[in-house]
């Protein structure tokens, strides 16, 4: 399977739809172990991404991702803005020049995106951040034949697993043990991204 400009557009579009729907839910996840703005931040950012995407024409997928990156960087703010911005920027760079992106290339893109997040956030898996979703997803892409169902399930399980970890990075770290039992808001928004990706794959399966 290969992904073209339209697939990437569709991915972002579906992501935006869910984020707008889940805006209040994401914010509510950020209230007990954060500052209650994650849904507001992501919804504002993705709304703007959609506005920008619709007014441009794109030759290749990397241009779509570059635009997504720049808009998230300049509209989301908080911790998640630079992290998602970095992720999409790195991904965009990794697939630069390709009109159609193979699963192998896309996997490389996800991998460098994850590396970018880790480096920017000075953090690793297990710290109750969005890395805890990106990390198993990237692994899933690397190790086996990706299907929409398995991708969806991997991301979902990873998100839910964050209830079992204690935050050591980001605002939730101040809650220490009290962060246990709560889903990390960034993991939830990342889950929505991969859920949207799974839908794109499903449409092509």
């Amino acid at each position, binding site marked *: 399977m290969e992904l073209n400009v339209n697939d990437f557009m569709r991915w972002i579009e579906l992501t935006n739809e869910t984020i707008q729907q889940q805006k209040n839910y994401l914010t509510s996840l950020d*209230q007990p172990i*954060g500052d*209650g703005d994650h849904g*507001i*931040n992501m919804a504002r950012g993705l709304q703007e991404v959609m506005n920008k995407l619709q007014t441009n024409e794109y030759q290749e997928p990397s241009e779509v991702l570059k635009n997504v990156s720049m808009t998230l960087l300049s*509209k989301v*703010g*908080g*911790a998640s803005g630079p992290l998602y911005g970095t992720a999409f920027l790195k991904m965009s760079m990794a697939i630069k020049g390709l009109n159609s992106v193979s699963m192998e290339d896309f996997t490389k893109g996800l991998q460098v995106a994850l590396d970018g997040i880790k480096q920017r956030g000075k953090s690793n898996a297990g710290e109750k951040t969005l890395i805890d979703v990106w990390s198993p997803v990237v692994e899933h892409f690397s190790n086996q034949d990706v299907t929409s169902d398995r991708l969806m399930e991997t991301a979902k399980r990873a998100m839910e697993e964050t209830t079992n970890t204690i935050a050591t990075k980001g605002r939730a770290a101040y809650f220490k043990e009290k962060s246990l039992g709560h889903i990390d808001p960034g993991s939830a928004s990342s889950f929505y991204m991969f859920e949207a990706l799974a839908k794109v794959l499903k449409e092509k399966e």
Partner: protein
Amino acid sequence: MKKIINDPNQVVQDMIDGLIMANPATLKQVPETFVVAREDAPVQGKVALVSGGGSGHEPAHAGYIGKGVLDAAVCGEVFTSPTPDQVLEAIRAVDGGAGVFLVIKNYTGDVLNFEMAQELAEAEGIKVSHVIVNDDVAVEDSSFTTGRRGIAGTVFVHKIAGAKAEAGGSLEEVQAVAEKVVANVRSMGMALTPCIVPAAGTPSFELEEDEMEIGMGIHGEPGINRGSITSADEIAIALTDKILADYDFSGEVAVLVNGLGATPAMELYILNKKIHQILEEQGINVYKTFVGEYMTSLEMAGCSVSLLKVDDELKELLDAASEAPAFRI
């Protein structure tokens, strides 16, 4: 939600408009940004100071703009770090050739966004350096986690680094003195009530009618002890003791008693009385005291106490003239 606002998603824009209208002679908005700068920026040959962060902490940060303190402030959405492009705009707007110094509070979002802006500015050939303020002793100090938060002690960094820049200090000198302030300042806060982010519409935590939380952060981050409201004296003891236990303040200090938004000045002065008594008992001399709203959390009721250990250099810079409305000297 009882607020004097229009569209909850436009509060920062509306606030900046109202701020500039109130101060047309001293402030300007960098067009199409949430950056507020000195009217006369860039000041050629002077190191420029940029601070900022989420909005909702007024007078932080735009109230500290003025000769002798900040050159620009970047206003994020409420309680949300501003984005790198905004910080970059601020850096560009104030760079007068001698470099730009960023004052960053130690929150993941602030650090990430400001550092990215610094990278972008450096790529454009602007000399930039920064300091990360982490004065909140309510948080355990650890390099494995996010670390301590930056709260009201940041105001001393603005003032003193600003004075150094105004006096002609180089970017390295400004950075050195800012780091000296960070090394010598400790703070802790407490809250009696939550506050409401306008776009969220509900408080992110609740406190019972008889409860308070010692150590709470300026975005409602958790403190170290939630319990029944005690007297002003006991609150002063709880905050001051923890601060004094964290660092050797023997000698001379500047004191900052900061209201979080809804707490009347009367209560801050009552608190200040006990703080002075405690310091006197410890043989610590108070050089100067600042009481008021310096770094708020919207309409939260509560306060914070900051102590800065001062030597001759810091005293001189603290006393230097300042035209910033929120820290006039």
